[in-house]
């Protein structure tokens, strides 16, 4: 989620948050802290990221990540058109180009006949953790 103020300025770039603590042990993010941070912003405008650090807080996409998103789009287009081989070809390429992008890797699992809650998901989690949890956003995991 992200916070946008009255003048349409992004005052807190995107970060991962959850409405409940059901999976807190898994992702390490405390929902209560995130919800309280949102309430605090509504009340007094303060955020978890100092204003001077907002610009530049999120790294731009790499060329490979850009192309990964486009091949994912080609894959869904081909899947919708009934070209399963073409879809798979582009899903595979998208995942190779952007291996840590969950909107590509995990989102493609059910579209490729896989299980987004199965073994391949946990393989993705292991890879992601080993890579240092790369994310184009603010990581508040463990914040309280």
């Amino acid at each position, binding site marked *: 989620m992200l916070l*946008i103020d009255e003048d349409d300025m*992004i005052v807190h770039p995107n970060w991962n948050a959850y409405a409940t603590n059901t999976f807190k042990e898994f992702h390490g993010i405390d929902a209560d802290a995130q919800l309280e941070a949102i309430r605090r912003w509504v009340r007094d405008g303060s955020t978890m990221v100092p204003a001077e650090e907002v*610009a530049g807080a999120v790294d731009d996409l790499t060329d490979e990540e850009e*192309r990964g998103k486009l091949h994912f789009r080609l894959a869904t*287009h081909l899947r919708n058109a009934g070209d399963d081989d073409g879809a798979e*070809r*582009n899903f595979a390429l998208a995942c190779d180009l952007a291996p840590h992008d969950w909107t590509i890797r995990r*989102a493609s699992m059910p579209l490729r006949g896989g299980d987004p809650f199965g073994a391949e998901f946990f393989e993705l989690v292991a890879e992601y953790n080993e890579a240092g949890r790369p994310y184009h956003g603010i990581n508040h995991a463990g914040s309280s």
Partner: protein
Amino acid sequence: MDPADIAVVETPPEVSADMLEELIGWTLKPQGLCRDERCVIVPDRAVLGSDDSVSLPAVAELLDRPIAVDESAGLVAIGAEREQRRSALRDRKAPDFSLPDLDGTWHALSDHRSKKKLLVAFSSW
């Protein structure tokens, strides 16, 4: 095709110059690649292809837009202008995007100006 959109077009990567506007909304003119009031200078026409054709990857590069080609499927995907994304990261101004609600009614960010907005993106996987 809006400059902020990703477009998937059914076409080979080399197209007739006449088709450019229909495919991506830009027209090749003597002064350059043009869309509405805006023109991007083409330093060397030969870079775009022969006289009667243009290369979409070369056009995308001139417009600073990423592109992916699947020649066997006859498909090209062209991404949004990189500068739009970069300026949002740098200047923090949220782009005025629009999304439909469950009834199909479109809502623009600018419809909610003067209010605080919490933007949530989620997936049910």
